[in-house]
């Protein structure tokens, strides 16, 4: 852990895992959706469900969905602000099998009807991990610029993606592959040390067999 994992972050209380981490999960979900959500269902699991209310976990998740960072003083007012922004919020609880105690399943929809389902956990100290997107396993923290590519599971897909990225001078730090079944839908998660050029992302999107490309950079606004 670096010294700023020990000292800091600056955050709205009361809990780095139940509040700051929850804001971050909401914010990652908004960025993955790519547009402000107009509908959000928050299904809390484990300790999030048991003590989430007293820790403001619900407010924190909504604040993140509204685009707030973990130190935003408006976090306590997230519900009225969501109403003003036209975001419909529904709260519930769920049992996610084998999940970390501080986990949540977020189902969001933007104004165009695009939907996204994110399963994520808060690991402590404000750090988080996304476990699955739209029911497909994935594992990333958002601490690095991250590409999430959903593609048809067929030979050559990985080579094609890495060829495009290497041509565009993007250095891949980590790469993971997941799929729901052979020949079905697959997910590639790539983390990079540097910001990934928009041109590379557009080229990936144009690739046959690639269903959806999502780019997550928590350093960027929006």
């Amino acid at each position, binding site marked *: 852990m670096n010294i700023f994992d020990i000292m800091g972050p600056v955050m709205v209380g009361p809990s780095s895992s139940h509040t700051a981490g929850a804001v971050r999960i909401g914010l990652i979900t908004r960025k993955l959706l790519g547009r402000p959500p107009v509908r959000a269902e928050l299904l809390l699991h484990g300790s999030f469900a048991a*003590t989430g209310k*007293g820790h403001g976990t619900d407010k924190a998740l909504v604040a993140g969905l509204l685009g707030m960072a973990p130190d935003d003083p408006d976090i306590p007012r997230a519900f009225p602000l969501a109403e003003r922004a036209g975001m419909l919020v529904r709260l519930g609880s769920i049992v996610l099998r084998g999940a970390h105690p501080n986990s949540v399943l977020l189902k969001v929809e933007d104004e165009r009807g695009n939907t996204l389902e994110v399963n994520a956990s808060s690991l402590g100290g404000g750090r988080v991990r996304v476990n699955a997107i739209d029911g497909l396993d994935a594992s990333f923290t958002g601490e690095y610029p991250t590409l999430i590519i959903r593609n048809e599971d067929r030979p050559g897909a990985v080579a094609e993606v890495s060829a495009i990225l290497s041509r565009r001078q993007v250095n891949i730090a980590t790469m993971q592959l997941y799929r729901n079944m052979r020949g079905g839908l697959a997910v590639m998660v790539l983390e990079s040390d540097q910001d990934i050029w928009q041109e590379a992302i557009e080229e990936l999107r144009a690739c046959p067999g690639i269903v959806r490309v999502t780019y997550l950079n928590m350093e960027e606004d929006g």
Partner: protein
Amino acid sequence: MAFTSVEGLLRAAAEMPLWQAVQADDIRDRGADAADSWGQMARLWAAMTESVAQYSPLLRSSSDLVGGEGGLVAEQGGRLCGPFLSAVIATALKTGECNACMRRIVAAPTAGASGVLPAVLLPLQQRDGLSDEAMTQALYVAAGFGQVIASRASISGAEGGCQAEVGSASGMAAAALVHLMGGTPEQMAHACAMALSNILGLVCDPVAGLVEVPCVKRNVMGAMNALSCAEMALCGVKNAIPCDEVIDAMRSVGDSMPAALRETGAGGLAATPTGRRIAEQILGK
């Protein structure tokens, strides 16, 4: 590379002031430059100061268990402890209350223990007219010791009980105080070792699982413990067990703690009849 032993920290401090050794390591570790690292730490100090300044005695947590205590001590305290120590008590309560009431604080090392460092640092800065620069250096010292604690033991109550949160904060604060009073790196290590030893075994038993009772007041205990251990170290008092071994003991004590006493809200004060009744009321709300 992050520091994984106090011994290593002291070796690095043979070449330069300990705070600077921690900064130099941060620069290497993250590939940051000195100004960037310093700026980030200075902002944390500013945020600690602001969170105490924005305190209001009218704040109440959503459970209504916490609020107003810092104001009471700030107003009436001092008859027994004198102005400095009562300011320490009030500052710990204020920060802990701000945290419980969803105001902005600095996790140091956690949100639950966020009151300890500001509680000892702010009143000392005021009393002795110390510069913000000196306070920022003190945060580097605290972070360096905290890094060793995190790597050898834990700074999470769910893993190691309250000894890992308020205990760690108290050890970090004791070392930072020795720095501010002009003590040696060895004295910082003794102060940290004493502070950790005193809180060894403290369980994490929050009522209703909330960071409120007994967390806010345990910040006061962590701050007062840090002051007395720093004072002892500055007078040449030594800890028989070296700091690294104390931290290792803290880990093994944490590992042997039952889950009920590690932030589950199922044991200790949380499991008392009153603790259970409060939990039922809040969760039924």
